[in-house]
């Protein structure tokens, strides 16, 4: 197998060709209305924003800092501008059921007018109605009424008295009532004298007295009815007077609001209520009670007078109350009171008819907010329920405002994991959020994209208010965007990182008193960021330099190789070499992964070791038993190992241990391997190579060291300048390998050798050495089995321990 050539500088870094950037500074570049490379997300957004059917709410998913928020706002704003302004909504008192305030929909901007009209009406009532009651007309009519009633009361009694007198019977008052007695010449007859009357006369008198008593009883029992009648007639009079007083203002209002039937109906209800409570307005000293007048006022819940197009609302604290609205209470002398004027709108009210943008994570972290949002979206109406009621903690009488019909497009922003978790665990989720707008992490880097990316940078620079960038600075930024994407053919779409870098470059340009941001400032910003995050990396390098962590970058050694690993700390990643060692002795075909045994290895790592042990068995002992007891360890690794990127290194070091052939310590190895020995791509190659390079540099300078990496990883290389210089000078070599044999040859300098038709490797080749050594192990194993079999017959397990 032919050995690969070391990579050239051009292969390990994709420069941005300056001729593609046809401008001097970013000042001459036009703004980019929409980011490029996000076609999928944009189409989804456009679709979601214009789709009318229920349930087509959006979930915009992408990593945080991808600029989702701004983009969503921009897209929605352009859509909203073309849509009509939604209605105003207000709550009014419900005169039938006082705890269920009514909701009235009004054309946009008219809510304010209605509110003003009603409070003016309330003020007018306060003065005009008492004036009516004070009028002479009213007073005279009330007096007439009372006089009439008095007359009727008296009349009943005097009629009885007259009748009694006419029949010679006296009607006398007693302390508690009345009584009748026969009379003569105006005087009550002595009972003794009465006894002398004839029976007919007595009968006549007594029946008359009885008759009069009955009449009197009837007359007295009529009194409550009479009084009630008076009350009713006074009430009717009050109503009449109030009707007359209200006629004018009410008529005007009814005419003005004739186009809104709900308002007209409310006005009629108000009039009836005023009439019903006419007596309450009679108090001329204090005026009508404020509580009574407040009922005629309007609680303007949603005021769209200033709204242009459909509203686009972002609620940054999406808790239950802020979403669905709430009913506040007023404390008065230690008691809490509420009425319809204390109903407060939520974000859903304000966004009704438009768009509501929410952060998914925040919604989910607020108690009941997610459930409430779903409930409201399902029902298509906003019903204000307090949290304590939802939980059943409070059962006090409160307001239950009439639900308001809802037509809103909810746009949730969140990371991908949240989207997939919600789709998996929440059965309602996909019913309500049918449109996913998935943001790309990175975009294509091709001929066409250079200028677009430059314009995007220019747009970003302008919106961030930083200096203009010259061409070189933009080129450097584009190159760094590739490095951030870890791909020569991609550019990162991560808004936040780029923006931070821009503002930091601007800062350094400012420090240097430069009118523009130049490439050096961008580089300085990159270096400074790198330096700020370098504490742990420097510490790790120091350990290696002082020999605390043992890493050799020169010489050769059997059963020892430099693997490469990546550490992620916060937002930064860095690579460092790790010594991997192996031992080999006769045994039962076992490769012990010490990391796994010590429970420091992850499942992917274990899988990789199993793959390599099957590769060994298949290649070197296809027909016979593999007598091997080998072990693999990551030296001085205490934090656990995961991933399969060390499997090429592990294979090499294991083979070295078996064959006793030393490996070059100056070459670090990364790459994963399949069961056929083919090398596969891994992640973090830039950090790994730079990590090893840094170790070499501090350990006596870089001199003919290098690294092996999977050939399929070459297009991910965007290495830093010092590595590039060393590569250019031939002091550091990076080899792309496709097969384990290439790695073996590069590390040992020995021809690996291909097996002939019988499966025998050529004499003197590396593989032959391995095969021979394994055969020797097998011999040892057999003789040992024989010995133990003769001794005690159960030695078969020894090799397993």
């Amino acid at each position, binding site marked *: 197998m032919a050995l690969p050539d070391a990579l050239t500088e051009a292969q390990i870094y994709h420069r941005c060709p300056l001729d593609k950037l046809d401008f001097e500074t970013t000042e001459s570049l036009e703004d980019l209305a929409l980011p490029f490379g996000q076609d999928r997300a944009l189409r989804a957004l456009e679709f979601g924003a214009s789709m009318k059917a229920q349930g087509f709410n959006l979930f915009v998913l992408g990593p945080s800092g991808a600029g989702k928020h701004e983009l969503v706002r921009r897209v929605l704003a352009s859509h909203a501008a073309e849509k009509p302004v939604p209605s105003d909504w207000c709550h009014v008192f419900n005169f039938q059921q006082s705890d269920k305030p009514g909701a009235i929909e009004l054309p946009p901007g008219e809510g304010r007018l209605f509110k003003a009209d009603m409070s003016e009406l309330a003020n007018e009532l306060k003065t005009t109605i008492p004036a009516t009651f004070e009028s002479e007309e009213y*007073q005279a009519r009330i*007096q007439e009424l*009372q*006089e009439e009633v*008095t*007359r009727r*009361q*008296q009349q009943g*009694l005097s009629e009885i008295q007259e009748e009694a007198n006419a029949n010679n019977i*006296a009607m*006398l*008052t*007693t*302390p*508690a*009532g*009345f*009584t*009748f*007695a*026969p*009379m003569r010449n105006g*005087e*009550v*007859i*002595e*009972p003794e004298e*009465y006894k002398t009357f004839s029976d007919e006369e007595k009968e006549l008198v*007594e029946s008359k*007295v*009885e008759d009069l*008593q009955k009449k*009197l*009883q*009837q*007359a*007295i*029992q009529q*009194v409550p009815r009479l009084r009630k009648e008076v009350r009713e007639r006074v009430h009717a009079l009050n109503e009449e007077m109030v009707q007359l007083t209200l006629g004018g203002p009410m008529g005007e209002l009814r005419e003005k609001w004739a186009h809104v039937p709900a308002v007209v109906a409310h006005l009629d209800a108000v009039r009836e209520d005023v009439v019903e409570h006419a007596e309450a307005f009679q108090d001329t000293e204090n005026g009508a009670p404020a509580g009574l007048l407040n009922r005629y006022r309007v609680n303007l819940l949603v005021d769209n007078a200033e709204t242009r197009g459909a509203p686009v609302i972002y609620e940054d604290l999406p808790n239950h109350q802020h979403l669905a609205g709430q009913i506040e209470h007023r404390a008065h002398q230690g008691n809490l009171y509420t009425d319809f004027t204390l109903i407060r709108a939520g974000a859903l009210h304000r966004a009704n008819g438009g768009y509501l943008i929410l952060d998914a994570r925040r919604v989910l972290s607020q108690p009941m907010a997610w459930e409430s949002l779903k409930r409201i979206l399902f029902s298509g109406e906003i019903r204000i329920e307090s949290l304590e009621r939802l939980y059943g903690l409070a059962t006090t009488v409160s307001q239950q405002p009439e639900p308001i019909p809802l037509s809103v497009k909810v746009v949730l922003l969140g990371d991908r994991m949240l989207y997939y978790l919600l789709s998996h665990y929440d059965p309602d989720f996909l019913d309500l959020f049918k449109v996913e707008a998935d943001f790309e992490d990175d975009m294509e880097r091709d001929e066409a994209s250079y200028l677009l990316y430059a314009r995007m940078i220019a747009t970003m620079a302008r919106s961030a208010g930083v200096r203009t960038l010259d061409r070189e600075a933009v080129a450097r930024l584009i190159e760094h965007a590739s490095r951030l994407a870890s791909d020569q053919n991609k550019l990162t779409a991560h808004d936040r990182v780029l923006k931070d870098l821009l503002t930091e470059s601007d800062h350094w340009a400012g420090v240097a008193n430069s009118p523009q941001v130049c490439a050096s400032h961008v580089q300085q910003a990159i270096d400074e960021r790198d330096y700020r995050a370098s504490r742990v990396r420097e510490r790790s390098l120091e350990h290696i330099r002082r020999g605390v962590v043992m890493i050799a970058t020169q010489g050769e050694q059997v059963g020892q190789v430099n693997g490469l690993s990546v550490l992620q700390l916060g937002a930064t990643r860095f690579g460092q070499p790790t010594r991997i060692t192996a031992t080999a002795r006769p045994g039962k075909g076992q490769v012990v992964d010490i990391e796994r045994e010590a429970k420091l290895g992850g499942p992917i790592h274990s899988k990789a070791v199993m793959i390599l042990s099957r590769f060994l068995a298949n290649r070197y002992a296809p027909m016979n038993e593999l007598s091997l007891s080998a072990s693999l360890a990551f030296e001085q690794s205490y934090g656990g190992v995961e991933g399969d990127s060390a499997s090429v290194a592990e294979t090499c070091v294991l083979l070295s241990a078996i064959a006793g052939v030393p490996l070059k310590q100056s070459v670090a190895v990364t790459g994963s391997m399949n069961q056929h020995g083919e090398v596969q791509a891994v992640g973090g190659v830039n950090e790994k190579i730079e990590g090893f390079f840094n170790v070499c540099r501090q350990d006596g300078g870089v001199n003919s060291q290098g690294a092996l990496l999977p050939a399929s990883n070459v297009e991910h290389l965007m290495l830093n300048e010092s590595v590039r210089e060393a590569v250019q000078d031939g002091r550091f070599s990076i080899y792309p390998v496709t097969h384990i044999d290439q790695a073996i040859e590069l590390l040992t300098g020995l021809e690996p050798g291909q097996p002939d038709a019988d499966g025998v490797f050529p004499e003197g080749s590396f593989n032959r050495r391995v095969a021979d050594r394994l055969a020797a192990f097998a011999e040892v194993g057999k003789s040992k089995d024989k010995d133990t079999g003769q001794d005690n017959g159960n030695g078969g397990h020894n090799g397993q321990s």
Partner: protein
Amino acid sequence: MADTTVSHKTPEPAPAEARRILVLLDGSRRSLAALEAAADIARAQQAEVLGIFVEEVSLLRSAGYGFAREVGRSSGVARPMDVDALEVRMQATAEKLRRALERTLAPWGVAQALRLCRGEVVEQVLGLVQPDDLLVLGGAGWSGISSFRLGSTARSLLRQAPGDVLLWPESRSLPPGRVVVLLNHDQGANHRAVRVGVELARRGQRALTVLVRSDAADDREFLEELAAMLEAGGISARVRRLPKAGAAAMARAVREEGAAQLVISRQCSLFEQQGAESLLCQLNLPVTITP
């Protein structure tokens, strides 16, 4: 309507009177309120108070009939009546009144007595009252079912008593306001009414209004006479002329003046009108009727 203000020159001391105050008592709440009012006047004038309690003969007689029933004033329920029970009730009432008199007046050293009589109320009272005496009657309304009890009695006494009659409403204390005297320009007995009004105003330190009912244009002479009278009384008063309108208009005029007390002559033409008395009641003011 012409308003004239007559101011006094030299105030004249109130004449020391040695008249009696007679209070007609029947044990009702209203009559006890009248007793309080009488006590106030008595304390101010150091006059003797004589409570009168009349055991009505006709009532006793009517109780003697086997078929007699008492029909409740507000419930209308009929209960049998009985002479013995009535007698007991009357004795208890008399005792209660005696104690009330003592409690109200003895601490101030005002002479007081309760006169028990048996007979007809009007007859008995008229037999006791002298022209110089003040007769105090309790009972806000003279009409209406709640005050029917005093109705005919009060009416007869108002018309027949030889001296002043004070009709006291149910309320115990006097509201703030003016003393209003209501006169007819063409009647002779105005002097007494004006004098009583002046005295009430002075005693209560209240403003005085004289309302003159007059239709004729020839009242100049009368107004001059009135001015002279007020001057003699040494008090300034507002004088208003009113047309001889109905009782209702009169009541309104009195109310408009902010009246707290009303003085009216028995000969006032107002009493010729139907319902005048009931209107006076509705004012719910203490009314003094002068001969």
